[in-house]
């Protein structure tokens, strides 16, 4: 039973990583850039929802929609102002700009909303309970966990369908393959990348709300560590692969909890990353990553 409890905690933690990783991998897959500011967009989303719900007493659903709206606009704005001018620049230059943007968001948040901790309201209560209790209460699954997992799966399916079936999705795949060729085919590359950021940022808002529902302390640095972990998860699963992000996220969470539970809480951080290195040794492009054939 303890094992099952740990497994559930692991999946719960992992699903939070996964939902952040989905946004990461989406932007990476199409725009081919590591958007290190993603974690901080998550934080902004969580703050917006917090204020909407806790300060203005709005319905949580409206809070989430508002957060998505703000994040979408923010994401497109960031892309337009900071990343678009660097479209022709080396990829590392964009990486550094993204890091600058991450500092910018964190510090703006601190100035706007102060460094004080905020306790994120728990609105995922159904029938007055915080979760499902099984086996006479020996096993509890929190609603947030179920909602997060459901959201992950829905988003994963949605994204896969979107990129596979819709016109815009196909344009995205074309841009990710070859920007130049896509442009020649009449695809507006700028619009496509802009839409990618819009979707990625809207996902970030959802991720922010779910992250803070599970781990309700909200500060301006809330997004940074989960952001790095999610990036790790995205690479673990094979960066650019949408199902890979889900798998990578969940596995990372489970490994983290198991390392703490069965080996050592002191060394758990080291163990998680050691497992990651070992897996990458055997699967050099991540679990579900595409094997890229190199041309001479």
């Amino acid at each position: 039973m303890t094992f099952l409890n740990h497994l559930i905690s692991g999946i719960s933690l992992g699903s939070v990583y996964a939902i952040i990783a989905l946004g990461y991998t989406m932007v990476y897959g199409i725009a081919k850039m590591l958007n290190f500011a993603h974690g901080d967009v998550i934080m902004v989303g969580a703050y917006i929802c917090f204020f909407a719900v806790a300060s203005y007493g709005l319905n949580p659903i409206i809070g989430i929609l508002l957060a998505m709206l703000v994040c979408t606009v923010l994401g497109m704005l960031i892309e337009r102002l900071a990343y678009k001018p660097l479209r022709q620049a080396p990829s590392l230059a964009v990486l550094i700009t993204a890091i600058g943007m991450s500092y910018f968001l964190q510090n703006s948040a601190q100035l706007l909303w102060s460094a004080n901790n905020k306790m994120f309201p728990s609105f995922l209560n159904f029938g007055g309970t915080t979760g499902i209790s099984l086996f006479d209460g020996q096993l509890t699954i929190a609603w947030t966990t179920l909602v997060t997992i459901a959201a992950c799966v829905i988003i994963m399916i949605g994204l896969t369908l979107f990129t596979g079936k819709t016109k815009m999705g196909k344009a995205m795949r074309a841009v990710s393959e070859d920007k130049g060729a896509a442009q020649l085919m009449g695809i507006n590359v700028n619009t496509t990348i802009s839409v990618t950021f819009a979707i990625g940022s809207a996902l970030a808002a959802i991720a922010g709300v779910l992250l803070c529902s599970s781990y309700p302390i909200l500060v301006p640095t809330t997004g940074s560590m989960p952001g790095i972990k999610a990036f790790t998860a995205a690479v673990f699963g094979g960066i650019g692969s949408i199902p890979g992000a889900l798998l990578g996220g969940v596995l990372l969470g489970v490994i983290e909890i198991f390392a703490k539970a069965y080996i050592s809480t002191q060394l758990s951080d080291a163990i998680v990353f050691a497992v990651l290195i070992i897996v990458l040794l055997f699967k050099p492009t991540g679990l579900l990553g595409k094997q890229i054939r190199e041309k001479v």
Partner: protein
Amino acid sequence: MKKLRLNKTSRTNFLTYGMVVVLFVVLQIMSGGGMLSSTMKGQLVPICAYVVMALSLNLTVGVLGELSLGHAGFMSVGAFAGAVTAAALQNAIPSGGLRLAVAMIIGALFAAVAGVLIGIPVLRLRGDYLAIVTLAFGEIIKSIINNLYIGMDAGGLHASLINNTIVLEEGGRMILSGPMGIPGITKISTFTAGFILIMLSLVIIFNLVNSRAGRAIMALRDNRIAAESVGINVTQYKMMAFVTSAALAGAAGTLFAMGQNTIIASKFDFNQSILILVFVVLGGQGRMWGSIIAAAALTILPELLRGFADYRMLVYAIVLILVMLATNNPTLSGFFSRLFGRFRKPQKGDAAR
């Protein structure tokens, strides 16, 4: 002019040495004449350490062409190995300079060993997968040092992992106490020592880059498959660049640590690695003088922005973004090209750049 015509690379290299020497002399004179503020004086040693970090990372990122997100891990290994060595030798070697040199060598050695260990898995991978393994390595180092305890008494050094189980004789003392790090460092790093380390790093890097091995490494960066097909041993040359880079980072770590009052493992985290990467990218990949200036400038910048009070780090972020946008802006670089073009004869290859 024509008699002493050096090729372009050597000229850049000599200009780089010259720039470091001139900056060193100027700062030494200013420091001697009391013209430097305490803030600036206090930053001289860290700046030197960051310059060497940037140079060594530039070897990995610029010359070898691999993205590393865990360079602070090597700095950490060097910092702790060096600082423990220096503390252990406090009585054996009374001369600060000599002790620092020994500590740096030990720090560099430990970092080189770490470089070999991590190089084995890392160099099989490519691109972002390699980056994430270096990130993981940095985190592992941080976690291990956070759980490492080292004490010293008449019987020598004692170490334990996870829990402090060390029993020391009378007169012994703890050097490294896990999360508390090394709390009482006797500062022995000097600006001169930093200058020597920078010059030494430049000599090592330039000699490596301009050697047969260096050309092989750059060939690997530019086209791995083509390089491999002409018989270049990929693993050997990659390893060579990676381990040299790690060793230099280790020496820089020791220099840094011995200029601080205290160091803790969490100082050398992901953000620190990123900071060093920013130096390299801002200064230009493969361009050593660029790394030197960028490392110095970005280390001083946050201190200069103190006048902005609460808005300091916000301004820092904006400056960082604007500089990245400006240096990659075609209009702006066209403007500067025209401006400087007047003072300089056009050269072949300008159009290509």
